[in-house]
């Protein structure tokens, strides 16, 4: 009986090792691994492109931006954590050159009020670009589920990290920016 158990186990073990090795070989051949370079609002993917109008009436095209790091923040004036984190973005945007780190705040204008946006920007001395998502297309492309949501993109527009909710910690933001800058050196 015991001998039978031992014999069965040895057969099972050898078969499992062999079959698992075969599976590794088979799966590597039939389903070769490849880097998914699709456009999607998820870490590791390329960020969805957009071209939106800024508060000043200029056009901002994400594809044309050559900054080493792009901080993309989705916000609305009625959202308290969005309002709370804006001074952090403003402070950090002044610390870095725009060709090094560019902050872009995408306002959910389809759910917001232009007068409130102008007033908020004036009160908080926001100097980095605020773009207006008038029809909600960009928010939908980024699958925004809660405000604020912040994405950090590399120069090639790959999403490096993201944070849903807020307010973001200045230390987290600075740490992630420095990590991307060091990675691109």
């Amino acid at each position, binding site marked *: 009986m*015991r001998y039978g*158990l*031992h014999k069965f*186990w*040895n057969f099972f*073990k050898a078969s*499992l*090792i062999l079959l*698992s*090795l075969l*599976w*590794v070989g088979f*799966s*590597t051949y*039939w*389903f*070769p*691994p490849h*880097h*998914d370079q*699709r*456009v*999607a*609002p*998820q870490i*590791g*993917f390329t960020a969805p492109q957009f071209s939106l109008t800024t508060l000043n009436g200029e056009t901002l095209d994400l594809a044309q931006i050559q900054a080493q790091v792009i901080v993309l923040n989705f916000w609305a004036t009625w959202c308290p954590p969005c309002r709370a984190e804006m001074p952090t973005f403003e402070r950090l945007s002044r610390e870095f050159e725009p060709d090094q780190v560019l902050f872009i705040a995408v306002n959910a204008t389809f759910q917001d009020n232009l007068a409130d946006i102008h007033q908020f920007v004036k009160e908080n001395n926001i100097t980095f670009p605020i773009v207006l998502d008038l029809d909600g297309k960009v928010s939908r492309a980024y699958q925004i*589920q*809660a405000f604020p949501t912040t994405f950090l993109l590399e120069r090639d527009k790959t999403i490096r*990290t993201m*944070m*849903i*909710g807020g307010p973001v*910690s*200045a*230390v*987290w933001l*600075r*740490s992630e920016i*420095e*990590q991307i800058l060091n990675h691109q050196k």
Partner: protein
Amino acid sequence: MFPILHIGPLSINTSILILLAGLWIALWVGEKQYPTASPSFSLYENLVLTALIAGIMGARLGYAVQNISAFMSDPLALLTPSPNMLDLPAGALAAFLAALVYGHRHSLKLWKTLDQLTPPASVFASTVHLANLASGDAYGAPTQAPWCIHLWNACRHPTQVYAFILALGVAIFILRTSRYNLPEGFQFWAFIGMSALVRLIIEPFRGDSAILLGIFRQAQFIAWLVLLISLFQISKRIKLIDRE
């Protein structure tokens, strides 16, 4: 994908909620499975909580060490309740060391403790895949299979669902076999081996695999090694059954 749960003005991270619920269910299952004649299960619960707290603290410290210049400007950020500022390897190391110290202080036997924690760990492991499904992490490779799910702008293998079903099978096996009087460490290695096998099977269907030497999937290679170690550890214990 269901990353955020909106309750009134609150936006709750669904995957963290699932993981917390998973931990609670796992500990409840552990307590139910525990033989009443033995010392209190709270000893093991405290071990888990000690490791968890030490793990979180270690993960935060690890992140701070890696980003020391940012933390020097605001040391109080160490206390910020943010899940983004965590370093997993540092957290795992801190949790392991804390568990080791706790176990030594309370004279817990290594294999017996691991066996005791294996049933709850197997239950918790299956909820991790549900958390991944909610957040959209551990996503599958694009496919034309009729059961694909639309995620990240493609129809993909629902790898989180595959992993959940297999992990649930592992948990059921572990819970059923925990009734038997098996050699010490048997349950633990059976769980580790089966979990490695699950990863080995699922990995080719995933769309986020890290690649080794330009051809192989890193996770598959590691899972195969872990499976090998587990099988040899189980063999040692089967020989013990023979001797007895």
